[in-house]
């Protein structure tokens, strides 16, 4: 009788041991978080079979590299190809390739919210309910088609060597007054986006207008200081860092913070009356050649691990509230509370692409900037 019991126990222990052992085995790779559904394994296996994922994005290299490296480390069997293309060219490239049936990109990830939304609206994206959906704010998910991945505020940047931190205006109204009061000494030393040449610039100004009319006061001040307008963020960052300009308005805070890490002369102020926050939208196209790998990448970017890299290494500002660090939504929300004005991913974005809305804005803007 004892023998039978021992056998049973042995078998039970073996079985238990096996089950435990199986449970302890990682799901094929390191990166998949625990709360993912079991069906994820199958998708992951399919992704690894695809072996590669091609990202079309306008996020510049040095910001995004940590994210890409982290992904590669987490999923060594999915080779990553990152193609950096400027936002308008990205739109063109994607639409041309999709129309010709020769789409190379598997994930389309761009900071140009209006153009991205247009693509979502025109049915270029495939619906995918990411397991990370729940951790994102509602306004950052559009019908499971597109996901906001970052939380980037528009900031003022200034040259720390020349301007004292205390003297730099901290709100939009203060900035308008600062420009106007110091017009004489700021002649030619202020920069901002040219809304006609920079889609991002126009976007930020129109978001400003949703938060009041102080933009026009600032525009007047820019006119009085004979401010220079630019099409590229980089140009402004460089000119402020070198001291050619002392101040620049409405620069993407993430890039500024990243530069500040390596250049101590770069100062960044996130305005406290209201701060427009934009998000980089990512989606998986309907015709993607490697949809599974694309989805794995998308999930990684939205996961806690990915967002931590986004916040702390890439300075792109994480969108998840459960990530802590210098460049995080959590910190911003704590510090600025209701002044944070994130731009929701919805159909209002399409208005921004209307020439009937753009052209009058340009006219008024240009008039004020030229001091008329």
């Amino acid at each position: 009788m004892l023998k039978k019991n021992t056998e049973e126990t042995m078998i039970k222990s073996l079985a238990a041991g096996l089950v435990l052992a199986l449970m302890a085995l990682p799901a094929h790779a390191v990166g998949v978080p625990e709360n993912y559904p079991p069906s994820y394994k199958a998708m992951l296996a399919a992704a690894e079979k695809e072996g590669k994922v091609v990202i079309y994005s306008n996020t510049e290299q040095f910001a995004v590299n940590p994210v890409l490296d982290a992904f590669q480390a987490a999923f060594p069997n999915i080779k990553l190809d990152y193609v950096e293309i400027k936002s308008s060219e990205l739109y063109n490239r994607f639409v041309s390739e999709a129309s010709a049936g020769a789409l190379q990109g598997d994930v389309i990830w761009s900071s140009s919210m209006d153009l991205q939304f247009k693509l979502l609206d025109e049915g270029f994206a495939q619906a995918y309910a990411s397991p990370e959906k729940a951790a994102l704010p509602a306004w950052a998910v559009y019908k499971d088609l597109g996901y906001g991945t970052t939380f980037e505020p528009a900031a003022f940047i200034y040259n720390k060597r020349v301007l004292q931190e205390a003297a730099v205006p901290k709100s939009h109204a203060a900035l308008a007054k600062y420009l106007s009061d110091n017009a004489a000494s700021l002649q030619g030393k202020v920069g901002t986006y040219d809304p006609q040449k920079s889609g991002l610039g126009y976007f930020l100004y129109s978001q400003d207008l949703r938060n009041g009319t102080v933009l026009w006061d600032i525009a007047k001040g820019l006119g009085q200081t004979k401010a220079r307008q630019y099409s590229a963020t980089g140009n402004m960052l460089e000119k402020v860092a070198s001291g050619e300009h002392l101040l620049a308005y409405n620069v993407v805070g993430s890039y500024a913070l990243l530069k500040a890490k390596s250049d101590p002369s770069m100062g960044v102020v996130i305005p406290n009356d209201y701060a427009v926050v934009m998000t980089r939208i990512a989606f998986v196209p309907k015709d993607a050649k490697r949809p599974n790998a694309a989805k794995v990448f998308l999930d990684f970017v939205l996961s806690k691990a990915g967002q931590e890299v986004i916040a702390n290494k890439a300075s792109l500002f994480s969108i998840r509230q459960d990530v802590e660090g210098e460049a995080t939504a959590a910190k911003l929300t704590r510090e600025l509370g209701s002044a944070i004005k994130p731009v929701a991913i919805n159909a209002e974005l399409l208005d921004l692409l209307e020439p009937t809305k753009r052209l009058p804005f340009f006219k008024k803007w240009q008039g004020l900037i030229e001091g008329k």
Partner: protein
Amino acid sequence: MATALAAVPGGRDLWRVAIIATGAAAILAPVALVVYQSFLSAPFFSARARFSLDGYAFVLADEDFWVAGLNSVILAASMVAIAVPVGAALAYLVVRTDLPARRALETLVLVPLFVSPMVLAFGYVVSLGPVGFLTTAYESVLGAAPWNIYSMLATALIVALTHVPHVYLYVAAALRLVPSDSEEAARVAGAGPGRTALTVTLPMVLPSIGVGAVLVFFLGFELFGLPYVLGDPEGRLVLSTYLYKLTTRLGTPSYQLMAVVVVAIMVVTLPLVTLQRLVTAQARRYATVRGKAVRARLVPLGRWRWLAFAAIMLWLVAVVIVPLAGITLRSVVSSWGLGVNLADVLTLRNYAAIDSMRGVGRSIVNTALIATFGAALSVAAYAAFTLATHRWPGWFSRVFDYLVLLPRAMPGIVAGLAIFWLFLFVAPLKPLLNTLASIWLAYTLVWMPFGLRLVSNAVGQIGEELEDAARVAGAGPGRVARDVVLPLARHGLLASWLLTFLLFAREYSTGIYLIGPGSEVMGAMLVSLWSAGNIDVVSALSVINTVMIALGIAIALRLGIALDE
């Protein structure tokens, strides 16, 4: 002996027609696409596209377009007004006179060709911008600097002076073939070196000067990098940057508007080809040579010798040393400008950062490949076109003169975009899209007028009897090309290869739409890095790009290849 063969006059020339037709197709396809697009209301591949003149209406009614057009004309005109006389004078000084250090100068004067215009523009901002190294140095000693690097005048001067080598190349090649006796006759009659140059020698090479002037004028309309970097701060547009602006102005990229601008540029620049042909035909009576380079006696400059040398050095400093110094300095500092002590910020970090960049290694390799093998292939294509139209009287040859210049009438960005679309929508070409093949085609088309000209000049110098003698001895056209024409045009072929190498290695705007994973090139990488703001890495990469090019030239010189022999 074989009995009489009934010869078909057209059949003999079939190979010519085949080559020219292929070339014409490659040239006309992107151009036709762009012209077609200009008459549509939406991108041509969109279902919503309809025939419409709205594009023309919008652009022609847009004040910015006319202002940009005027600026382009001013720049192009100043390029011709300055670069042509300076280039011709330089060619005369280096080739015909006893200028000191002539041998070294022959290479040095071509150095501005090595440097990408983006890099140049950049370098000027770093050196002579409002907080540039030289500006701050000047201001600390002499007070406010009198120059504004962002002014139209500065842009016009920089653009003109950096295009001197383009004119120099063609004029120098022609000057080498002019025998001395005309000059000696003038000197005996009492004319000094300057007067001789102006009234005797240079008029004899008028066709080459004309060619240089037309090419430089074309380039003036195509200019992108320099006006982009230097014009942005004051909001000054030229046609190519206006075109670039149209990619965002109306929200979604407006290709039909871009296409209209290209058509406008073509309308302005193509009649120049007619002008150039008139000048060349007129000056056929100046033809002096039958295929032999003459050992001309040097014109003594007397007391002007060192003055001329100093002037040339000054030009080199202004056009090469100043911007390159700027860019090199920027590449080894972590920050610069007001209040920065240079000694504190020296670092090699920017070069190290290149190492961690994605695709940089590949871009360097790709650029090297395209600039060496790709350029060789392009020269082969140019040689084929030259041979096909060589000594073939008829309307097709004349038409080809215009065809060759067509792609250059498009700013590089649009040319690249058109090629991108072609490769995308023409089925047999699709698999080649993200490869170097598409980039190679775009580059070959866009720089054809330059590379082809060097080959056709060399081939044109070969005496007709040398070819006739081979035909009489029994050689068909292919053999004549192989045994007589190509060997005797060797120098021209190599020169064309070298020039094409230079142009490909520093090309930046044409590839923007064509690069993909695996087909990155350095120039396009520089542009995207720059717009993202990594000026430090851009500087380091630019230095590497320039060094690569200089190395290539040094190797070529070692091998005895020269650009203007």
